[in-house]
């Protein structure tokens, strides 16, 4: 079993990131955020507060949104992790990314990967959320630039785009 073993020092952890199974070496004290950014060089996930308040480092772990600053990398052994790098399909942005871009739902952009991952989690669970549901679900993500309105509208737009895409897919 990976992620096991006693003895101080590094250990080997196997995880699946964006569909690819990978192994890394880490110390127990390293967070998933540190390993994603510094070891796996997936720097799309951003470090904000590093204490679980801002949501900038949100990734999906086994389908659930988590703040990767509050996950030890060793805890992720065997997990399926999805990061912002795994959202686009090749060179095609997905509906959430397109809606953020077209709706100018970002300014400095540091919070954006976290918002997009959280919006992906929301739409997977609730494909047609109300504005109130969007605001509640995204409450763990902070943005100091936009004032949130454009972000909420982008998530509403992404829900429409996704529904339209699914209807086209069925017809």
């Amino acid at each position, binding site marked *: 079993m990976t992620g096991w073993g006693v003895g101080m020092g590094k250990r080997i952890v196997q995880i699946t990131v964006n569909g690819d199974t990978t192994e890394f070496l880490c*110390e*127990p004290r*390293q967070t998933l955020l540190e390993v994603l950014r510094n070891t796996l060089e997936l720097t799309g996930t951003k470090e904000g507060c590093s204490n679980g308040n801002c949501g900038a480092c949100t990734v999906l772990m086994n389908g*659930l949104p988590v703040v990767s600053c509050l996950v*030890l990398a060793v805890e992720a052994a065997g997990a399926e992790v999805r990061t912002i790098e795994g959202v686009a399909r090749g060179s095609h942005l997905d509906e959430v990314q397109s809606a953020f871009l077209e709706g100018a739902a970002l300014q400095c952009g540091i919070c954006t990967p976290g918002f997009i991952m959280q919006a992906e989690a929301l739409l997977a669970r609730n494909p047609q959320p109300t504005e109130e549901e969007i605001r509640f679900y995204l409450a763990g993500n902070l943005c100091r630039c936009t004032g949130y309105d454009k972000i909420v509208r982008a998530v509403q737009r992404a829900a429409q785009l996704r529904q339209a895409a699914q209807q086209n897919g069925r017809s």
Partner: protein
Amino acid sequence: MHNFEYQAVATLDEAVQLLEQHRGKARLLAGGTDLIDQMRIGRHTPEFVIDVKKIAELNRLDLATDGLYVGAAVPCYRITGHTELSRQYAALSDSCCIIGGIQIQSRATLGGNLCNSGPAADSIPAMIALGGSCLIRGPAGSRELPIESFCTAPSKNVLQAGELVVEIRFPPRAPRSGSHYRRMIPRNEMDIAVVGVGASVELDESLSHFVSVRVGLGAVAPTPLLAGAVADALAGQPVNGSSFARAAEIARQSIAPITDMRGTREYRIHATGVMVQRVLEMAVARARGEDANYRVGH
């Protein structure tokens, strides 16, 4: 963060054995949403971190005829996502859906909220109101005690060396009962309670009198409290405005709040009364099966 050793254990015996072996130098990890931050800021510097969330007993979530059993490592999302549990034990679900944000609820556990023993922990007044007790396992065996007896001071509790909380148990819900948890915060979400109130009521067959009432209060004393005097005063009383007002007055007299950045002592005393009334009204509405659609944060 400081260096430590980490081990994920699969059984309760292993957890107890490791806790014993590293007495005073180990800490348990479940959801990590408190511990990892506490280690980062240096509040806790354990040499050994024991990950207990793979232990089967700590992941139990059973809604049975003889009550509700929630393993200590069950994350909030499993509680809020359980429709029948959320209907019967609404106060518990109400509290779990406002602990941190959604990302925190993916990981944060009921046992962790209890064992961190914060005075403002949202789930504890709800657990007290619902008559919860916790099963503790240690080197000398198991013991069970009521939730209201668990916390002893801010961040302190009754756990002895080598002990851990295995599960939280709740008695079955009586017919014509309802419950609710709500907190006073200046915004709708992602905040720490200025006052938190959990209540559970059982009504008589006419739905006009209280059979029994339990009220748990948070953020208004060094530990979450059972407002026993409210229960005594309301049992057998009619469900009306003067009973709610009496409950509010008694609750105000039961607390010992401090002044801090979130509110003054006077404000907390006033808000406790207001919140007790509102929470009791919602618990009564639920007990009556009325359309009591609670909008979180409002």
